């Protein structure tokens, strides 16, 4: 088997390229390899679909500003402000 055919059947490499593609443009060769692979591999097509879905779930559940329904407890906050006030009075 030459390297080219090997890659067509290589799911490890294909899933790597699927992940890389989400953040960085692939080279022409990489694109060709991945497309050839996906054309013949339904498992990796499914992987790709699920991978993109997981990204969406993460964006929803782990938004970069955090979840609005999460709060610190009031007791902790009160003590924290007291601590800040103390430190300010030192100066």
């Amino acid at each position: 088997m030459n390297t080219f055919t090997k890659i067509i059947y290589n799911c490890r490499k294909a899933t790597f390229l699927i992940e890389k593609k989400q953040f960085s443009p692939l080279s022409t060769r990489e694109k060709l390899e991945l497309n050839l692979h996906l054309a013949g591999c339904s498992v990796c097509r499914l992987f790709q679909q699920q991978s993109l879905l997981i990204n969406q779930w993460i964006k929803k559940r782990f938004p970069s500003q955090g979840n609005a329904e999460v709060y610190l407890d009031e007791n902790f906050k009160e003590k924290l402000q007291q601590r800040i006030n103390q430190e300010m009075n030192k100066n």
Partner: protein
Amino acid sequence: MQSDKTANPASTRSLNPNQWVINYADYLYRYAIVRINQEEQCRDLVQETFLAALEKADQFEGRSTEKTWLTAILRNKIIDLYRKKSSGLAPKDEVRHHEVLQEDFFDAENGHWNVEHQPKAFAAQPDEVIQNREFNHILQMCMKKLPALWFAVFSMKHMDEEQTEVICTELKLSHSNFWVIIHRAKLSLRACLEKNWI
């Protein structure tokens, strides 16, 4: 003069530590908890952020808002923690453990999926899933299971959409190592979700 009201907005930006907790504590805590995933550590981080901010209050030049400035301090603390959590022997064993698990995913010879690890169709509909409390819990648990360094890379890229270059510099990674981690983290996460939910 018409521009008077808007002139030099920086001059109105000063620090107001008396109001920090009421204005920013929840915000900073939320910011931390999606990136660190441990309540106790996040509370400490919020406290440390305010105390560090007081110490360098004289460096605040009003070029950013108070909120942006505090968030930047917290962000640096989070990255310090990522570095700390992913250096040393135990974290390296943890990574090795996950790598060994993944060796089974693909045939060592030809890289094809081994049958028992092939992704299977998710049973639940994507829209139902995201509303589901139990699913959210599983997603969180699966994220927590990632080795610290993988979690750090994954969250900086996926949540913060940080430049690859920046992540590599801050976590001291080579580019090729970075892409390997992005790939492995997703393989682990997907497998964990399938195993525990679908």
